[in-house]
């Protein structure tokens, strides 16, 4: 479809942006028509947020052009974008909970009379803006009295009151219940009817076809595809997001995993049944035997990380059962889980893994500290011995064991974090995206290491977004979607199309696709 047929409101071309050490956007582009609901999707780190932050002036672009409403723009500050008619509604609502609804809508440009705030006028106008969105509430009540969905409506009302021509919504439904989503969609349709364009970022695939007109798919900082939503299936969207050609036969040997003998016998080491926690876990079940690598697949927000956190005692659970070696377990804290022989490498190394200013030695032995001290004094000799052994064993490249961990590369940091658990001789390892953000060589090394660990009898639960890693590394794959376990595949029945279908639709919908 050529642009001539569409009345374009926004055109971003050749957008590049680097941060120290990382290229976040590499010639990304985006085109949004007037009165169009444009969906923007991509995995974590695909560049959607960076692209939006460049659009609304939170970041400066390195290169590229942005044309908005017929003229070239380059916003240096968020309020410039706002004045030009671009409003952003974030996942976490950026409003002041203690102030009234009306104050929140007009914050920073309260109507005034004789230098004082004109309350009657502000309340009247706030009511008008909300009722145009089909919302009738008392605008004098504090925002915190409203539920999350209504708070979001207030945020949208604020955006609209700025005469927004384009509203960016960053995962607006992530905290909404089903019926609240319906209300939000009504509001979005109302905006559309007024000629306002919406960029809609979501990882809930089901919503896209309900609300969107067109979709742009991003991956690795690039724009991969743009199409009308009527011309693309959910399965294709997932495949494009993950960078898979649907009908190409998969090449073996793309990872560091080798074909191991499958461990299909033996008593289960870990059994998780019908786990529930709020909205994020609705019915999750997964299991692992000693010596088995179980892949846990699912898109963002599918609940895969939450399962691992629940097993590890990092989050409380509402219902369901966890068994370790047949024994029922409910860990009240990570310390309990660690004592039971479980290790957990988190997805976000920086915020949940490393202690940046401490050395490799201290980071590596952090979880072992309780066992490394005699009368409270850390046994340095044993500590050093452990560190030396694992630095050698895993090939950790650091200037010395005393180097600060923040100075290491991602791959070496990850090895240190793996060693943090390995030196405790665990029975079960939970690995959340063990090779994310790691260069190719180190990636293969870590994958080989995971193989070796399983061979040595460890049970491994491996969460991954990378299809190759899942397909080549796992003895079994459990697929999650919307907080539920929807499918399970044995090694010899795993095939890429089936896996992607399960991730996109849930297993039961497979027939619907055919």
């Amino acid at each position, binding site marked *: 479809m050529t642009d001539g047929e569409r009345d374009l409101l926004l055109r971003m071309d050749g957008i590049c942006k680097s941060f120290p*050490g990382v290229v976040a956007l590499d010639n990304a582009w985006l085109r949004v028509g007037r009165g169009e609901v444009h969906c923007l999707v991509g995995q974590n780190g695909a560049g959607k947020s960076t692209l939006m932050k460049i659009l609304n002036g939170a970041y400066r672009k390195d290169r590229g052009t942005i044309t908005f409403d017929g003229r070239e723009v380059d916003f240096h500050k968020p309020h410039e974008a706002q004045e030009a008619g671009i409003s952003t509604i974030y996942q976490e609502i950026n409003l002041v909970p203690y102030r009234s609804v009306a104050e929140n809508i007009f914050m920073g440009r309260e109507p005034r009379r004789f230098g004082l705030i004109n309350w009657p006028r502000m309340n009247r106008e706030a009511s008008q803006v909300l009722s145009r969105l089909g919302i009738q509430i008392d605008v004098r009540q504090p925002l915190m009295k409203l539920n999350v969905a209504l708070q979001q409506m207030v945020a949208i009302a604020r955006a609209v009151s700025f005469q927004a021509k384009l509203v960016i919504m960053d995962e607006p439904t992530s905290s909404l219940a089903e019926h609240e989503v319906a209300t939000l969609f009504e509001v979005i349709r109302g905006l559309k009817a007024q000629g306002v364009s919406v960029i809609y970022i979501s990882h809930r695939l089901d919503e896209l076809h309900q609300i969107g007109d067109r979709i742009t798919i991003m991956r*690795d900082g690039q724009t991969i595809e743009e199409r009308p939503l009527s011309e693309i299936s959910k399965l294709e969207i997932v495949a494009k997001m993950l960078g898979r050609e649907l009908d190409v036969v998969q090449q073996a040997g793309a990872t560091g995993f080798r074909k191991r003998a499958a461990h299909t016998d033996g008593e289960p080491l870990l059994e998780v049944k019908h786990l529930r926690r709020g909205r994020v876990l609705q019915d999750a079940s997964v299991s692992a035997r000693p010596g088995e690598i179980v892949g846990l697949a699912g898109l963002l927000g599918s609940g895969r990380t939450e399962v691992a956190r629940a097993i590890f005692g990092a989050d409380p659970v509402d219902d369901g059962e966890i068994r370790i070696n047949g024994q029922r377990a409910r860990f009240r804290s990570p310390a309990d889980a660690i004592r039971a022989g479980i290790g957990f490498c*988190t997805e976000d190394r920086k915020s*949940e893994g490393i*202690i940046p*200013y401490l050395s490799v030695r201290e980071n590596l032995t952090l*979880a072992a*500290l309780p066992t490394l001290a005699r009368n409270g004094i850390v046994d340095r000799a044993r500590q050093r011995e452990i560190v030396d052994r694992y630095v050698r064993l895993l090939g950790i490249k650091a200037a010395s064991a005393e180097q600060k961990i923040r100075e290491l590369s991602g791959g070496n940091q990850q090895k240190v974090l793996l060693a943090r658990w390995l030196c405790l001789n665990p029975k079960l390892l939970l690995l959340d995206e063990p090779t994310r*953000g790691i260069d190719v060589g180190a990636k293969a090394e870590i994958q080989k290491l995971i193989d070796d660990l399983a061979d040595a009898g460890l049970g491994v639960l491996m969460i991954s*977004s990378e299809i190759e890693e899942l397909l080549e590394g796992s003895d079994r794959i459990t697929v999650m979607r919307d907080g539920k376990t929807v499918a399970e595949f044995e090694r010899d029945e795993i095939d890429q199309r089936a896996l992607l279908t399960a991730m996109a639709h849930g297993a039961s919908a497979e027939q619907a696709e055919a």
Partner: protein
Amino acid sequence: MTARTASQEPTTSGWQQWAAGLLRQQGALIALIAIFLFGVWRYGENFTSEFNLWTLLRNNTYFGLIALGMTFVIMTGGIDLSVGAVVALTAVAAARLSGEGLWVAVAGAIGLGLGVGLINGALIARFRIQPFIVTLATLLAARGGALNLSNNASVSIDFNSNFKDLWRTNVGEVPLPVVITAFAFLLGSIALNLTRFGRHVLAIGGNEEAARLAGLPIARTLVAVYALSGALAGLSGALLAAQGNTGSPIAGIGWELTAIAAVVVGGTLLTGGRGSVWTTLVGVLLLGLIFNELNFERGKGTFELTQYWEEVIRGAFLLLVVILQSRLTRRASASTT
């Protein structure tokens, strides 16, 4: 998802990096030496006399002790505003107990401080309330407790008891308070660097979620840190009572801020996770030395300075050091990312 590495930033010369590193790590020490040498040059033998130097050290022991406790608190990412009031409370308590002898009075003061610290720690760790709020509340309560315990008047110590020896005894050449404080810093350094507790403190301040996921006892460590801070404030209160022969309920006002200043000037990060016990000692000495030299300057009669103006000068100097340090840190972190 693949992070491609962008080109490295241009590197500065090795010499510049070395100098910047030295300034960053030992900036306070260099300032301390410079100000000391200035004193030697300007005030001569009066300044370098044994009497002046020992007095200088001894009169900073009570600041040193609370700053030591504050170092641990700040390294966990917290703050303890109650220490100044705890000094007053425990000074009054020590004065009241002084008739029972030195040991009872000192133990009572430390125990009382420890009690306040335990309350701080329990509220912060169990109920997850901001340390700022909790310790502000205990500041008020401890100050009120001091006024109650003293009937709003200074409590004189029992001159027949050996309590006053706490301040006046010398070990060889060295005043006992200086010995006690030096020993406390030595123990503090060992605790920070060699014990599990110290490593937990730094890990919690550096990344609390990572520490929790590594199974570290967060609550227990936080309680211990505030208890330590309270106990050291109690010891500080006992020293203060022995120095002045009285326990005053209005002593120690604003000392928590002096302690925080000493910790920060030394280079410990207010956000936690990074710091050292020795740089705090340097910070305490730096602030004490400035005070001492201002006294000499007044003695020379170069300018008429009221004590209030000295406070202003100390404040300005503090700002100067902190600004310098933050600039150096920023430059250093820009060159390592």
